[in-house]
């Protein structure tokens, strides 16, 4: 059993089911992210783990101890669960100074005055907030408030950290910097961390493991690499797009005795490898999904390519997104660095890798391509 174990936990608010029979194992020391769009139940899940929300169903275990179970009539109150929580709004007490905010939890633990002073000072130093002891939260910037919130959580040394979108109120630059600080914090403390975000890049960069949720249901629980390369269903595939994925609807056809993918619009056909071919049948409706970098556009004709036209090309310094069109097909590809593709020029596109999804179940059928063009 994981350090934090969720077994069929469910939360209903009247008719709304915010979290629906969620099963999850979070290993000790892991940085685990709950990822999903707004309203999918991330905060609710976190609050149930913290003990701020009652479960409607299911059992919850922390550190091999059952902390909530209806049939066992078992409930461990939040303060006794050994978890620290950072709220999305930080929840710093506006009428207390930075020092008082951080010291509050220690006073509850009946530490001596001197000990509190040492511990709080050390802690504030660690988050580079020494010198701010006597400021009130309203006199701090967003990033500074964030650090105080971290200090307040960490100072009582809980074995697990829960963080609810701690970076979402910050601007893009600060967010980048604090990401690395959070990662360091995790490395240094070794605390099991459950992190909530709706930003997939943030999730990818920070996590050991990511759980994607949608409408209260678990969609996929995997490592960042697996999640990016082989999303379990169309929702996850779409959600992991950065900024978007290529999704082409189509169906399975038979050509030259082999099964091929054939797009619904345009005339793209992709021969399928043996492993995929075995699990699809002719006429089955499928979708072909590719990250932009799985496509390659060449200004000169190459073998096994399709001819397309540049619609527009967006250069962002380190990379260039090229939007392509041909009759009935639109695709986007990503080039490293600064490519110079003029609008309306002809390009030849090769496809190096793809995922195939069944349109009915929306789940992954298989992965094809090995880096070489597979057209």
């Amino acid at each position, binding site marked *: *059993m994981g350090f934090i174990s969720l077994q069929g936990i469910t939360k209903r*608010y*009247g008719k709304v089911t915010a979290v629906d029979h969620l099963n999850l194992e979070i290993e000790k020391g892991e940085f685990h992210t709950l990822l999903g769009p707004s309203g999918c139940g991330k905060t609710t899940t976190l609050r149930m783990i*913290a*003990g*701020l929300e*009652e479960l409607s169903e299911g*059992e919850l275990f922390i550190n091999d101890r*059952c902390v909530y*179970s*209806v*049939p*066992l*009539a078992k*409930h461990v109150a*939040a*303060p*006794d669960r050994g*978890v*620290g*929580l950072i*709220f999305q*709004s930080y*929840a710093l*007490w*506006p*009428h207390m100074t930075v020092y008082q905010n951080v010291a*509050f*939890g220690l006073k*509850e*633990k009946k530490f001596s005055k001197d000990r509190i002073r040492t511990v709080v000072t050390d802690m504030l130093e660690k988050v580079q907030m020494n010198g701010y002891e006597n400021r009130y939260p309203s006199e701090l910037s967003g990033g500074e408030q964030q650090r105080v919130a971290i200090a*307040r959580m960490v100072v*009582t040394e809980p074995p697990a950290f829960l963080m609810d979108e701690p970076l979402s109120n910050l601007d893009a630059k600060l967010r980048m910097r604090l990401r690395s600080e959070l990662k360091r914090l995790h490395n240094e403390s070794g605390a099991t961390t459950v992190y909530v975000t709706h930003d997939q890049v943030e999730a990818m960069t920070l996590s050991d493991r990511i759980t994607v949720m949608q409408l209260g249901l678990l969609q996929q629980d995997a490592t960042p690499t697996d999640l990016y390369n082989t999303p379990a269903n169309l929702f996850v595939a779409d959600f992991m797009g950065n900024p978007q994925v290529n999704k082409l609807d189509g169906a399975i056809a038979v050509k030259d005795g082999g099964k091929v993918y054939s797009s619904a619009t345009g005339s793209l056909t992709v021969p399928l490898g043996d492993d995929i071919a075995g699990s699809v049948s002719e006429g089955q409706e499928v979708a072909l999904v590719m990250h932009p970098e799985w496509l390659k556009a060449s200004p000169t004709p190459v073998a096994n390519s399709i001819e397309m036209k540049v619609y527009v090309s967006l250069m962002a310094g380190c990379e260039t997104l090229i939007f392509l069109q041909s009759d009935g097909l639109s695709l986007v590809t990503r080039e490293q660095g600064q490519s110079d593709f003029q609008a309306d020029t002809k390009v030849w596109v090769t496809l190096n890798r793809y995922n195939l999804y069944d349109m009915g179940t929306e789940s992954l059928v298989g992965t094809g391509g090995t880096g070489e063009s597979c057209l």
Partner: protein
Amino acid sequence: MSELDSVYTESSSLKLFITKSFFRLRRWLSRPEKIMGLILLAVLVILVVMPLIQIVIGASTYSYSDVSRRNLDAEVGDWTIYHWQRVVASRMSPVLLIKPLLHSMAIAIGVVLVALPLGSLLAWLVVRTDLPLKKLMGNLSIIPYVMPSWVMALAWFTVFKNSRLGGAPGFLEAMGINVPNWLSYGYIPIVLAMTIHYFPYAFILVSGAIASMDSQLEDTGRVLGASQRTVLRKITFPLMLPALGSAFVLIFSKALGTFGTPAILGLPVKYYTVATRVYHSIRGGNTGSAYALVIFLILISSLTIYMNARVIGVRKKFTTIGGKGTRVKTTKLGRARIPVAVIVFTFISVCILAPLSMLLLQSLTLHGDFNFSELTLKFWIGAPGEVYASNAGILRDPAVQAGMWNTIKLAVIAALVASFSGLFFGYAVVKARGSFLSKLIENLAFTPYIIPSIAFGGIFLSMFARSWGPIPSLYGTFTLLVLVTVAKRLPYTSRTGISAMMQIDKSLEEAAYLRGTSWVKRMWAIIIPLGKSGMMAGFILSLITSMRMLSLIILLVTPKTMVLTAMTYRFVEQGFTQQANAIAVLIIIMTLSGYFLATVLGKSKLEHIGG
């Protein structure tokens, strides 16, 4: 895990069900806001629900005086339709119900129709034009509402009373001008006196809505080519409709049950409203009929509130105005700017200064006839025996001094209790938002608004006259006055508390809970410090209201618990005009001091003053 499996496999489903239900109940009861909600519900049942039930019971049973006076062959408490019959379908019914009800309705409608346009116009001028000294004008216009409403009635008499009744004449009569009866007593004076009190209430309610309305919505209309007038008609007015609607209802139901003004200006000529009829019936021992009348008033109030919610409530949804981009643009008054300012300023000053100075002047003349060759201070500082019978001037009269002390004591204690209970209401309602209990207590706390004060006082009188379960008889005690004041103020205090609690993000308390802080400590270290400013404002508003209320306590005071307002009314009833006026001036000074304190401390929500 195996423990869990065995629970599922070995237990019977019934046992599992019981375990589960018991567990859920225990969890529910472990939440402080739920416990608080239950306690408040119990308080509401005693202070609001029971009185309502008692009103219905009182109207449908024989009372002690019914049985003893009429030699009925019935026991006290027997069910009867006698009172209903008497009120609705007897020879007496025009006198008891029909006429007073028509009078009350006519007064309420008259007051709303004058006060609402007047208040709205003023609100628009102050909020949305370049009127000079806007802030001052705004603060001044609220003052007539801060003064007790019955003061306007007394002041009316100082000017317009004619010699049809005995006692001191009004100013005009004293100057030799004949004042017609319709200008001295009854409908017109009542409506005008009440309007002066209520137009500021309309001003407060409407200006809030105007201030939060985004003028970009109107600008868009102008940009699209609509004329100013069309924009007003098609955009501004519909957007303001919800606010106007609720202002209408709030003023209407208050005016409907008002007692003081109609009592002073109507009773001398036997012009009855339901409220004054209720007062007389209760004093005359006909509580049954009185309660039947009260039920009619409550029904009418509820009906208007319901209709308002039905007609406008639906629209309210799309008129959630305000938000980030809100911008208030001021209309230029142009050349009218100064004349308008002068008119507004004069009007407001007259509304404030005229009553005050006339009351003061009359209290300084020997016969109350504005004969300035006979000025005297004896009604203020005369020695015992110098003023009528054995009375002293009010400042030296021990009874008045006791009354003043009682007034202050009542105001402070009631305001303290009210503001703390408001905070607890806010906590229980906001933390459990969306739950049935939360909605129930929020709505019950509003209910006293639609029960006329005079009836509220009356029902407390009969409810607490005898001991009642663990509650001892409270008649004649100070506690009873505090209770009735706190109960009647619930609609306001609960709202103040709720809006104060809404400002406090729930995570602030949860963050402390996660660190193992007990509930009491959380309240003490987090909730109360953060809710303090809201509570302080609520405290001062309650203080002002408690000092000036008349109808609520008039039936409950005894010589021992006499407060200034009731004392004034007794003086009025006895025809001691100058003393009544002098005490009224005293009360005005006390309430205005409270108001200035409130504006200095700032942030008070003045619509929560209440009547």
